[in-house]
């Protein structure tokens, strides 16, 4: 007899990606590193930010980069010049990284080094303000970049990205004197959709704002230490915690 049936699933549409993301995060936690997912539109300055931050922090932290954005070999060389391994992730034609791609990148990374020796893993996502916001890769923190040249309306036009971010960096602020945009207005629009995230204006050209940005990073690293566990990140086992070195700035 034909019986129409209905199963209630109540499952996240992206459950398959979510499972892989959680698996990645378990690895990150076992390796006791902080993973950042860096996202923005193309050209907002992710690579320039990384270049400056890696150079400034290389003496303080052991770091690696999973590079999902389509960059030239020159970009990778620039980043590797400060002694930070860069692993490209093959995204095909995808407009975002997903957890499985990052898992593939981790396999390549492990051929080069032991991730347990890292403090910080940067994931540079594909330049896109829409898709990456919905696909977790296992990161502990999402960092979104918005350059002043993109205009102050972007947080309202692409609200999900800015809502999801733990930290929004307003980049290229050295160009502000030449643009009809106001920093306060950009920040206010970010706050409209995400009142409590960190908002830090920076310039990778002048270095302005990088002290505050690196302080934010240090706070996130400290937050994953058992001395100051947060609700956002599961506490770690004290026995395996590596000593944190002080930041240079």
């Amino acid at each position: 007899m034909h019986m129409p049936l209905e199963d209630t699933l109540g499952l996240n549409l992206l459950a398959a990606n979510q499972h892989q993301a959680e698996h990645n995060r378990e690895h990150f936690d076992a390796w006791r590193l902080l993973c950042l997912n860096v996202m923005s539109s193309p050209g907002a300055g992710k690579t320039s930010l990384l270049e400056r931050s890696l150079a400034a922090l290389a003496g303080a932290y052991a770091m690696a980069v999973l590079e999902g954005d389509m960059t030239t070999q020159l970009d990778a060389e620039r980043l590797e010049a400060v002694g930070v391994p860069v692993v490209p992730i093959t995204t095909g034609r995808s407009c975002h990284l997903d957890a499985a791609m990052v898992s593939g990148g981790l396999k390549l990374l492990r051929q080069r080094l032991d991730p347990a020796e890292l403090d910080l893993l940067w994931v540079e996502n594909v330049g896109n303000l829409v898709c990456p916001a919905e696909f977790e890769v296992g990161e502990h923190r999402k960092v979104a970049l918005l350059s002043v040249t993109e205009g102050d309306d972007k947080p309202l036009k692409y609200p999900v990205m800015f809502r999801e971010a733990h930290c929004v960096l307003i980049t290229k602020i050295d160009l502000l004197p030449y643009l009809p945009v106001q920093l306060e207005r950009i920040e206010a629009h970010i706050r409209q959709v995400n009142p409590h995230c960190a908002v830090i204006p920076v310039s990778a050209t002048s270095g302005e704002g990088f002290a505050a940005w690196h302080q934010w990073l240090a706070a996130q690293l400290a937050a994953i230490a058992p001395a100051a566990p947060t609700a956002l990140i599961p506490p770690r086992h004290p026995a395996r915690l590596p000593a944190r070195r002080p930041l240079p700035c």
Partner: protein
Amino acid sequence: MHEVDMTRCLLLSMNAWKQQHEPRIPRVSRVHLQVGSFTCVEPDQLVFTWRVAVQNTWLDGAELVIEPVPLVGRCVRCNATYSPDPEQAYRSPCCQHPMEEIVSGRELRIRSVDYAFSDHPADALPAATPA
């Protein structure tokens, strides 16, 4: 076109669900999704990619039914719920407060599956009655 990747995720979940019924193969007529308006999903594109993706699979012919879920915020100052409007920068009309608490609109959920079994004679559809 991240809807393609979302459809891929959905198919993986559906395949896992099918395995729960092995060796029987459920014949799915409808898959019900809840999609919030404060997500990066375009429902029409999701339906389109679904139709293409399920062709010649065990889900061939299954319809994807999307229930839109509106964005509803709660003003943390006065506790009133409201419909955040991008034109008003998502602020609450009551207290002009930023969009702090989201009550609904972030849903991306596979709610339910309508199906029947037709692989077993006992489960087969009754033959069409001759006119």
